[in-house]
């Protein structure tokens, strides 16, 4: 049912580095900006420690009294929900005194499941329904994924998916352009996971930067898409620099050999490579129902990016969905 598409915005772009964007009035202004730009939900990014007030349920409670208190804060800014939480298990947890967790390490599985359960447990109270996860580390930071590794990864996310499903939360695998899954492995992993509890998070910008057309992914895996992120890509990693070690810094942040200033921007930005009307139409035709979370990673001007994204959604993408729906109903 295409009328089930809801529009959210990711707050991650407001936090350029670890000790910024920590004050409540900053969060309030960002949430109000997201609301007035025309979005109904906000996506959070997992973080840990004193400078991540929105990073995990413990920090929400420490800063807002409780998860419920944070929900009231969000609704007080005229947003309906926290749509989703993005979680990279390689991020350590100061709250649990643990280091990075790996979906390929069987020993980490209990902690992975427990951490996912905590995040998923908070989401329903906030109106959310998706835990977006980084399924494997970057390609340059692990050995090439063989059958055994893919089997362990699939088992891990199935276990996580079952745990989050207990809270009514879908687990969605978010494959970024540095991912070890980028070349050929997405089908291999998806085919090994349980469609009932594990889906795909389609990120238009990451796929495009990785040289993958989001339309082909929708065509092939439309029924597995559990979450969508709309961001534009300004460049493609044609030289496969993602295979380098520490590509997060050397390629994503620093821009690789070409010193790309920004890989990503808000949808519709000048020079953007993603055809958002086409992607939106394809999602509608695939019967996608759920959140489309707009992002503008690496934006130096987060509020401006949110308003420009709101312009595109209000004036083009939302009406397009309505038109498609009316045509389908006719």
């Amino acid at each position: 049912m295409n009328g089930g598409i809801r529009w959210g915005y990711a707050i991650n772009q407001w936090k350029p580095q670890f000790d910024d964007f920590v004050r409540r009035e900053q969060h309030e202004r960002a949430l109000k900006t997201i609301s007035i730009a025309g979005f109904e939900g906000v996506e959070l990014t997992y973080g840990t420690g004193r400078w991540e007030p929105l990073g995990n349920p413990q920090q929400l409670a420490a800063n807002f009294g409780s998860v419920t208190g944070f929900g009231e804060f969000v609704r007080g800014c005229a947003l309906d929900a926290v749509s989703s939480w993005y979680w990279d298990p390689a991020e350590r947890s100061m709250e649990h005194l643990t280091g990075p967790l790996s979906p390929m390490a069987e020993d980490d599985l209990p902690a992975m499941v427990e951490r996912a359960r905590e995040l998923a447990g908070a989401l329903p109270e906030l109106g959310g329904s998706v835990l977006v996860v980084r399924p494997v580390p970057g390609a340059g930071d692990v050995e090439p994924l063989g059958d055994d590794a893919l089997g362990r990864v699939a088992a891990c996310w199935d276990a996580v998916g079952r745990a989050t499903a207990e809270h009514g939360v879908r687990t969605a695998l978010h494959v970024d352009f540095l991912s070890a899954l980028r070349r050929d492995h997405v089908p291999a992993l998806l085919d090994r996971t349980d469609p009932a509890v594990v889906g795909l998070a389609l990120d238009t910008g990451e796929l495009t930067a990785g040289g993958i057309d989001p339309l082909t992914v929708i065509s092939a895996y439309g029924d597995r898409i559990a979450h969508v992120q709309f961001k534009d890509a300004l460049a493609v990693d044609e030289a496969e620099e993602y295979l380098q070690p520490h590509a997060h810094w050397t390629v994503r942040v620093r821009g690789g050999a070409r010193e790309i200033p920004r890989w990503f921007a808000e949808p519709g930005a000048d020079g953007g490579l993603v055809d958002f009307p086409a992607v939106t139409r394809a999602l509608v035709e695939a019967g996608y129902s759920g959140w489309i979370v707009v992002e503008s990673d690496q934006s130096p001007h987060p509020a401006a990016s949110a308003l420009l994204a709101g312009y595109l959604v209000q004036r083009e993408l939302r009406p397009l969905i309505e038109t498609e729906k009316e045509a389908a109903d006719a």
Partner: protein
Amino acid sequence: MVWTKWSYMDHWVTETPQGPQPPSFNRAYMDRYVKQLSALGFTGFDTFFFYLPLYAGMYGGVPGFERFLQDNGFDKITGIFSAYPSATKYTAPHVRETHDRIVADCTNTLRMCEALTGVENFIVMPTSTYYQTEPVTDDTIKVVADLWNRVGKLTLEHGMKTTCHFEFWGAIRTRAQLETFFEYTDPEYVHFFCDTAQHTIAGVDPVQLFRDYRDRCTGFHFKDTKNVDEHEAYRTPPDPELMAPQVTRWFYEMGEGGLVDFPGLMKEIVASGYDGWLTVEHDKAELGGGSYAEATAVAKWYIDNVLAGAQAAAEAELGVAR
């Protein structure tokens, strides 16, 4: 019913490769600026007289710029702001000998507005700085009034109302000076533009002022302040707005805990039957690291989520329907 006539006063600074610049930096920046205002739901656009040639250059004429606004959900250009904040030997509203030059200037501005849908307000700063004008006597105010009576008659012939926007640092700033000015000006030609922050800083209650001069009011700048001028900053040369030692930032967007009672003003507006444009302004939003995009978003959020409620409550209480 929701108030749909919200306009934005063209005070925006954006980051460019050459540092902070107005969006008129180039066409791409200008387009993005208009799109952001459009996303926020503004339907009117007020601008300064000195931007008109720039917009004409970018959009093939001022009407071309207005068409671009209309393509993005705006009704029209609603107001043109003209000013002589620094007195010179050529232009000083309190010096009668300069009036011909000022009228000629205004005529040039009016020419740039020809073929527009219908600019409603020709907004003027009635005087230059206080320190350049003082002592401010009845005679001083009479000279100033004579000028704007002339300009008001002229602009009315072009379909625009001359409306006076008083600054806290201008020569007409106290309640008594304002009353004298309104007494000396012709209600048919000279109107009142209520800038909530400027009056508050000058120690004048903008809600009461609107209540008293509602019949002459043709517009508002909804902006906030956190300070009343208690140190005669208004006399500080050369520019009290930016260089007063006691206060580094005078103006804030609505919803940031300032001194102006916006819900109270909204109630007065509803009660008065005023049905014109309401304008958002927040000059110098960049001070302290702020962004105009976020400041404008926060102000419009306040309009939609707080003032809309105040308006609805006032309408219910007064039994009026808009």
